[in-house]
């Protein structure tokens, strides 16, 4: 299946409903759309936060995300995939990341969206810095995120780290 693929890295906000509509309207083969939006929480370990700042490796991030989108389209019959990842300063309640997947049936759309989010968490070159009461600190990577990404690994394939 030829998939419609969009990958964008941007400072600006996005409109999840509009992005989902762009992948469904006029696409007669689409019977399922999964939209995941990651949002900046207002608290971190119980303490209110002022903002997150996302740093990214501009030269690598788009290529790395595109590689994973291509893997998703090769593993599941997807009609379309849109991934948007913001960078810069993001306030609580604001959007951080969007994954939209469309397919004829729900299984592929659900699985591909979850696969992409698990990989974005652990393999896309982004780093979150959290601002609490004027002090900034880098968010530590979570073992649970590594475990989540690991379950998508195919036998015989080796991750490059």
């Amino acid at each position, binding site marked *: 299946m030829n998939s419609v693929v969009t990958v964008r890295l941007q400072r600006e906000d996005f409109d999840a409903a509009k992005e989902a509509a762009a992948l469904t309207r006029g696409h007669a083969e689409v019977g399922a759309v999964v939209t995941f939006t990651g949002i900046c929480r207002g608290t971190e370990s119980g303490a209110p936060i002022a903002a997150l700042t996302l740093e990214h490796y501009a030269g690598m991030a788009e290529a790395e995300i595109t590689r994973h989108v291509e893997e998703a389209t090769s593993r599941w019959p997807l009609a379309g995939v849109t991934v948007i990842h913001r960078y810069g300063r993001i306030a609580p309640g604001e959007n951080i*990341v969007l994954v939209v997947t469309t397919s004829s049936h729900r299984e592929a759309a659900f699985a591909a969206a979850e696969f992409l989010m698990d990989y974005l968490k652990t393999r896309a070159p982004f780093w979150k810095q959290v601002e609490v009461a004027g002090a900034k600190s880098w968010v530590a990577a979570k073992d649970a995120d590594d475990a989540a990404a690991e379950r998508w690994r195919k036998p015989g394939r080796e991750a490059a780290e």
Partner: protein
Amino acid sequence: MKLCYFAWVRERIGKAEEEIAPPGNVTTIAELVRWLASRGDEYAYAFENPKVIRAAIDRSHVKSDATIQGAREIAFFPPMTGG
């Protein structure tokens, strides 16, 4: 070759990128990390725990035993926390 640093690796070293010419006996990522760590306190601090440092050669993830020969751009960074 060009080196790029991100997140707390960048902060500890105090710069985002630099041009370097490592000696000929430095051939892998792990050896490059060891050599960089010997260049001064800020580098020693950034690379004090090599196990947590991730690397990319020419914008693809690599392991620490990857060869750096022919690399144009090598990046060092902490584990990623996007999404």
